[in-house]
């Protein structure tokens, strides 16, 4: 068991808690950087592309985590922001804007879209907000298919590979590092917000709007900010998404994708940045895992249509039933088990069967 001795206030606002944590995160960073080289050596290049999806979904996860996990506003329309980011980025790339300019413009446009959605959403919470964002997503999907001069409708829109400052990211391994860079950037920015007054105001709104207001938090402003920031991150993810998928069509950004993104944060664990990453690993790596398992399953099961969706749903039900804090909650328990070994008591977490409150006194 490790004890954290605090001798300085700075210790509570550092990025990493102490030297031991810094060491482990540095090790994780090195492992992630070395991973493609190992995979190439093993001739398993296919997985480089799959893990790139983890990074892109990781940014999506952070986006929704800020909104759902930290501010307590549920959105069922985030695929629309992803789509706006992707189409905006692809459109600017097509019109000769370089990558860095296009991604910044894509982020600005999605942020503005986020503010627009956030404004009417100020008066709604819980299920009503979810329905409003759902309606927004459906409208935007319609826009994607009808606004042919920009999106090319159902004919689709090819997206060339990314080229940043003359350097081509055509290669899967190069694109892997590009996405990794943006994920780390998104993590850093989000962590910065969470350790400053804005992040605390979001958490306060989630747990008790009335108290947050009485402590001086402008509810309208901070809810709009949460929406705007969340949408902006989605725009960033969307730009990478466009390059990754290489061909944009309106039927990619469906309600199903929105729901999948929401599941990502719930399965990962609401209210933690770790949860967004765990959720991304789950969402991005489940389909290839199922594809591999198919070969070993009896034919009657493996050839069932909707196997993937079924397993997805089953896992979600099990998570909500047995681990409301998601994969991150389980991770904490495993960590505690080893750090307390052999003294761990099952009862340690017994009392904490409380769910994230999003609909308290208004």
């Amino acid at each position, binding site marked *: 068991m490790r004890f954290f001795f605090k001798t300085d206030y700075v210790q509570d606002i550092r990025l990493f808690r102490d030297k031991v944590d810094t060491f482990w995160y540095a090790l994780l960073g090195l492992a992630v950087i070395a991973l493609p080289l190992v995979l190439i050596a093993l001739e398993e290049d296919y997985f480089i592309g799959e893990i790139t999806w983890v990074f892109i979904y990781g940014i999506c996860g952070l986006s929704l985590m800020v909104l759902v996990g930290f501010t307590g506003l549920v959105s069922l329309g985030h695929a629309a922001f992803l789509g706006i980011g992707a189409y905006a980025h692809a459109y600017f790339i097509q019109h000769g804007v370089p990558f860095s300019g296009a991604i910044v413009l894509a982020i600005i446009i999605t942020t503005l879209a986020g503010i627009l959605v956030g404004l009417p959403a100020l008066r709604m919470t819980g299920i009503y907000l979810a329905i409003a964002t759902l309606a927004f997503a459906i409208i935007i999907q319609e826009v994607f298919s009808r606004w042919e001069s920009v999106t090319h409708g159902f004919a689709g829109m090819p997206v060339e590979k990314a080229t940043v400052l003359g350097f081509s990211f055509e290669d899967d391994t190069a694109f892997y590092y590009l996405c990794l860079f943006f994920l780390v950037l998104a993590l850093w920015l989000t962590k910065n917000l969470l350790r400053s007054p804005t992040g605390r105001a979001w958490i*306060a709104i989630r747990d008790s709007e009335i108290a947050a207001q009485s402590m001086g938090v402008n509810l309208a402003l901070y809810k709009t900010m949460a929406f705007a920031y969340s949408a902006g991150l989605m725009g960033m993810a969307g730009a990478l998404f466009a390059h990754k998928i290489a061909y944009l069509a309106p039927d990619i950004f469906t309600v199903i994708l929105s729901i999948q993104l929401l599941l990502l944060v719930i399965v990962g664990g609401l209210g933690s940045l770790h949860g967004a990453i765990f959720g991304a690993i789950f969402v991005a790596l489940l389909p290839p895992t199922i594809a591999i398992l198919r070969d070993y399953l009896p034919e009657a099961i493996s050839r069932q249509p909707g196997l993937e969706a079924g397993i997805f749903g089953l896992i979600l039900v099990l998570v909500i039933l047995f681990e409301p804090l998601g994969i991150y909650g389980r991770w904490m328990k495993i960590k505690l088990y080893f750090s307390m070994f052999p003294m761990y008591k099952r009862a340690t977490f017994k009392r904490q069967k409380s769910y994230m409150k999003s609909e308290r006194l208004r």
Partner: protein
Amino acid sequence: MTFFKADGLAINFGGIKAVDGVTFEVKKGEIFTIIGPNGAGKTTIFNLVSRIYEASEGKLVFEDRDITRTPPHQIAKLGIARTFQNIELFEHATLLQNLLLARHAHKKSGFFGELLFTPGVRKMELEHREAVEKVIDFLDIQQYRDTYIVNLPYGVRKVTELARALCTDPKLLLLDEPSSGLNVEETADMAFWIQDIKNLLGVTVLMVEHDMSLVSAVSDRVLALNYGRMLAQGTAQEVQTHPEVVRAYLGG
């Protein structure tokens, strides 16, 4: 100078007059208590002062400034803080985070500075932390600093709410039933703290309370309400012996 004044305050919910023409003045540096039976409109007055409810009639004045139409999130900045009858802490955050949030009214950093966590933001965070630590020492809750509120016992939560209100650096502190749910010993502690808040920190206290021993121990003046109307006003002794108050509330 008027420190705090409610003038002809009234609010209707449909046909019910929850508060009806209540007028009182709180002087700087005193402890003013509102008593009355359930549903008398005590908490409604608090919600009117912290601007969660819109007054139908009447005026609220704080430090010569009319705050009847001030947006609720600016009340804290003016120097009015409150606690809640049914604890409204941020449950899935640590005690420290709860207290730091109370510094929100004093925040000077902008969104982009915080996004990059500039040295200026870092310095400001440390200043907030120092202010918060003073309150932690004052109320003796050092050991719970990093505990999540969900894991704290009720008595400590009650103290945490008081601490959070103090962290806003208030001039006027609204305490909504500070002793409800506390045992005898904790209530005695609360009485000491309320007196210390007045004497050491120089904060004026407006309080709603049912425990008459606490009321008479700390209050400078008491206002009794029933059905949203004023029954009596004066020292604790005077109000407690007022025949109307005895009939409507205290019994005897």
